[in-house]
């Protein structure tokens, strides 16, 4: 007999499922893109051998000196080896938004308004922080 529902709930299992898929996708993207970057398959925006000259700088100076894109500007440079790595990073950072979105219908169907509102609030906070509005 499946004990999973004894210890967990429908929404918890769904959340775990979506999270698990996202994490796997994120890790694979991270490892592949890092390989392409390290082995020079894709030319990086900032030459990799130059990094040690700049990584001791505070981030705001680093960005100015190297021309590193901020916010979502990196998307325009996705063909660059270093920028491509951000895809995996963003998937990992954003997967909890997708997982929380996935469980909203369950809370709505059960009429659990408080948890529904809390979940929506969490999604909004994460989207705002991801949107670079605060940057």
């Amino acid at each position, binding site marked *: 007999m499946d*004990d*999973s529902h004894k*210890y*967990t*709930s429908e*929404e*918890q*299992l769904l959340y*775990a*499922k979506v*999270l*698990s898929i996202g*994490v796997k996708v*994120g*890790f694979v993207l*991270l*490892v592949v893109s*890092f390989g392409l*970057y*390290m082995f020079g398959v894709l030319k990086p925006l900032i030459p*990799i051998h130059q*990094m*040690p*000259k*700049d*990584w*001791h*700088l*505070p*981030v*705001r*100076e*680093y*960005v*100015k*000196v*190297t021309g590193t894109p*901020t*916010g979502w500007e990196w998307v325009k440079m996705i063909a660059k080896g*270093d920028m491509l*790595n*951000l895809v995996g*990073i963003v998937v*990992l*950072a*954003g997967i*909890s938004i997708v997982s*929380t979105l996935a*469980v909203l219908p369950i809370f709505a169907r059960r009429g659990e308004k*408080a*948890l529904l509102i*809390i979940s929506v*609030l*969490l999604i909004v*906070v*994460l989207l*705002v*922080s*991801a949107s670079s509005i*605060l940057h």
Partner: protein
Amino acid sequence: MTKNTRSLSAIAAMLMLLAALPAWANDTYGPIHHGETLWGIAGRVYRHQGVSRDQVMLALLRANPGAFAVSCNANSPLHTGAVLKLPPLAEVEALSRAEASREFRRQEREWKEHRRTGRPLVCPPVSKPAAPPLKPAAPPKQVPPPPKPAAPPKPAPPAAKPVTPPKPSPPAAKPAAPPPQAKPPAPKPTAPPPTPPPAPAAAPPSKPAAAGARAPSIMPWWSWPVLLFVVCFFLGIVAVPAGVGGGVLFVPIVGGFFPFHLDFVRGGGLMVALASALAASPGLLRLGLASLRLALPLSVLVAISQIAGAMIGLILPAAIAQTSLGIIILGIVVLMWTSKKADVPDVPRADPLSAALRINGIFHDTAHGQDIEWKVHRTPMALGAFIFIGVLAGMFGLGAGWANVPTLNLLMGVPVKVASGSSSLILSMTSSAAWVYINEGAVLPIIVVPSIIGMMLGAMIGVRLLRIVKASAIRRMVIFMLLLAGARALLKGLGIGL
């Protein structure tokens, strides 16, 4: 738990006190800390005295050419450990606001060009050589601003008043770039002669906020990601049995022993903590060892407060950030050493809020072979604690397992296994601080990716290790490691002996 909350409050109070302490005294400023910038320093000295930041930066350059990697360009990094002489106000005012602004822009253009082309910057020779970086240069006999054709220099300001002799400089400070003697020829057309000292052949970068930078590494670039991978692999091995998240080990250890600026280390720490939590959460949720209902309300507050913490962290001057980090890490050491755990705390009655949200559950305790039901109390108080934890986690990129678990377990009465699992879930749900760092450009793949991979692989070994070694022994070892790293961060922040 009240004890724990009290100690965290004390740490916060000390932080605020430290933030108020100026790093300058009398007529000197310093020693310069790793990561400190001329821009930042200029914002702190001569405040409310009617002079612009450009005026202050140029006056500091003139008074301390030897403290800069390129002695005639304010955009070049400051040597860590140097003590700056603060010239008298009259000298700061010697260059008008407009002239200072023009001159600074000229130097900025020159610096950009140097950075772009890699052509060495050549400073005109001086009669008196600049002092070595650690001891600020002999008062530069007037350095009339290198004028642009359109802006003729003012007459030389009066001789620098005698200043407090520099404090004995700490030994460290490797110069950011060895300052070879000036090659006299061909100053750039835009940079006419009148200025002093020597120039390095190739100086590390910077910009308006010239960096008080650590020396560029002599190791090849590829050695750093390899080293990060190895270190994080070992950190991953010990983190699991010690019951701490990756971030709390990563930030002080990598921040203390690697050449990266703390901003990138914090960005890396947040991503490492997030990735570790993400990897663990699905399994914990399926086993009922993490509770979504418990994590959701707490995560909202943590996510909001993490954003605030991350934004504070990114504007915090490097020295204060290092000092505060040292204090926090030492606070965590005390917390880890003294905190107790209750396997299944007694919760006589669920509080109304948790009852309304139905925050409760059941899990199977394999050690005792039985199902254990749990509920929570003191939820409103815990919500307040989590705001505080979120700010600290965002500010220092530490993750927050070290604080989440005791708060959930001892304050709310969550069984320790569910507390650990739910702490992980909360970490995975609150990526808001990580987003702030990503958007700022503080998440560098070359730092983050090998760290994440190393930590994940190490954690797999750590889980196996847990079966054969005593967790308490590893926990003691981790406490010792944190003690060293925290002390190092504190000393570094205070500019002592490093």
